[in-house]
């Protein structure tokens, strides 16, 4: 009880982080429906890793130029370049008949991961801040990050509202969409552009693990519980927001790590969704 009252009395501290977490959860929950249905769950993991690599690269370059490494806007822009670029390459280009797409995704994931470790090794003197820069810190999110997240959420929502039918057709049945004159690479590109845009800013707020979780778990629960795409997207958005918000509050009250708590709360929602589906069946 006292933990809860402490929580309420500290509203000034948690307001911005909570809003940012809820926004990130909702945004990734919505996009996750496409990620799960297009069977590219590990693309999101690779993009998170590439986004992290972007942050490391920006830090290395800033250091090389003898500039302050605390330029978060530079880090975010470079992370976006890596994430959006990776999304466009991994999500829309094939490897022909020689390699399955998963091979490219796996290579991107493991190479980016290795380069992150090597790069971080060169940044020993900023190691203390590096963890926060790379893996997020939902406990302390500046208002500026909330604004950036709001802008990204608005842009993603706008693109997906405007071009919903094209993105759905190109994602559901690429072969037919292309044969009937739809520019499937363009619309696949729009989808992966939005995913690539969302990941770095969300990772900066909630961390890499929750980003991967929010792109997968709320969508999986929503797809279990619903029978229509629009309903699945609405539910996944809501579940993403509730997982992030609920996880944040629970971590504060229970004094446990925030990102991991968010993932556990998201995971706990799959069980009722599965039970609901069984009951309906």
């Amino acid at each position: 009880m006292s933990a809860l009252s402490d929580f309420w009395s500290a509203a000034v501290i948690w307001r911005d982080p909570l809003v940012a977490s809820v926004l990130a959860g909702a945004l990734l929950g919505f996009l996750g429906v496409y990620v799960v249905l297009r069977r590219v769950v590990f693309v999101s993991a690779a993009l998170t890793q590439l986004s992290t690599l972007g942050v490391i690269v920006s830090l290395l370059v800033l250091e090389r130029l003898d500039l302050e490494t605390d330029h978060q806007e530079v880090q975010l822009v470079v992370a976006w370049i890596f994430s959006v670029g990776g999304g466009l390459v991994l999500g829309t280009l094939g490897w022909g008949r020689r390699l399955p797409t998963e091979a490219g995704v796996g290579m991107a994931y493991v190479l980016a991961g290795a380069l992150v470790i090597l790069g971080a090794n060169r940044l020993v003197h900023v190691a203390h801040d590096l963890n926060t820069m790379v893996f997020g810190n939902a406990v302390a999110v500046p208002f500026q990050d909330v604004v950036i997240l709001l802008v990204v959420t608005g842009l993603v929502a706008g693109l997906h509202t405007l071009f919903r039918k094209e993105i759905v057709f190109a994602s559901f049945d690429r072969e037919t969409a292309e044969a009937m004159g739809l520019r499937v690479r363009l619309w696949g590109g729009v989808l992966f552009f939005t995913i690539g845009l969302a990941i770095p800013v969300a990772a900066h707020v909630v961390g890499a693990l929750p980003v991967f979780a929010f792109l997968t778990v709320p969508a999986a629960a929503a797809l279990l519980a619903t029978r229509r795409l629009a309903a699945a997207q609405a539910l996944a958005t809501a579940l993403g927001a509730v997982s992030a918000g609920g996880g944040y509050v629970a971590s504060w009250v229970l004094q446990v790590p925030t990102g991991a708590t968010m993932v556990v709360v998201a995971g706990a929602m799959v069980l009722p969704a599965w039970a609901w589906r069984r009951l309906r069946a």
Partner: protein
Amino acid sequence: MAALVRLDAATLGYGGRALLAGVSVAVDPEDFLAVVGPNGGGKTTLLRTLLGLLPPLAGARVADGPLPVGYVPQRDHVDSLWPLSTGDVVTMGRVTRSGPGRRLSPGDAEVAREALARVGLGDLWSRSFGTLSGGQRQRTLIARALAAEPRLLALDEPTNGMDPAAELGAMDLLRELHAAGGLAVVMVSHRLEAVANYARRLAFVDKDQGLWKVGPLAEMLRPEALSRLYGRHVIVREEGGRRFVYPVGGEERP
């Protein structure tokens, strides 16, 4: 009558690798062309070239202006995991008609409903696509193609994996749609039996033999031509107004 689309001495292939050279064929507005050949023989490559999705490596593809195409993929290629209603799937046929960024109008929904009714599934509009039977799913995909109000209906192995009754139903439907007029049909199939009673013209394609031949059905259904294509003796029989094609033992091709 001007052809809707034609290939002139085209070399088919992709990634700079030629599969088959010297392919010439014209699809007329009232055509019903079936392309048959063994698996991996280049049928789908031919169809994709004809639709303009793969440029010919040599020769030319000539279309009579913008060509509204209705395409029916192999049923197995359509993901039943997606939570879509039958109506949602059919309505996709209107996407390229309405243009990017524009909402589908009530008129688009009406055309889609009519297309679903035309294939005999008008009462399944709200049913989940993933719960339909194989035959119903194939009809839904044909309805989606019709919703585009095409001049050319292109089908890739439309009866693949169907039981004989469903196959007969799907082919009868195609014949009805074609007979109603204003719709050319091009379908590829490795099942000669499926097309022998429906197509007006038949084309054989087999990249391994360098074989490309197209002509009227009666001329192409001669046992010696079929035996050469399949490397087996083939018997063609007519019973009760229907043609039956039987491959039998014995190598024909050296």
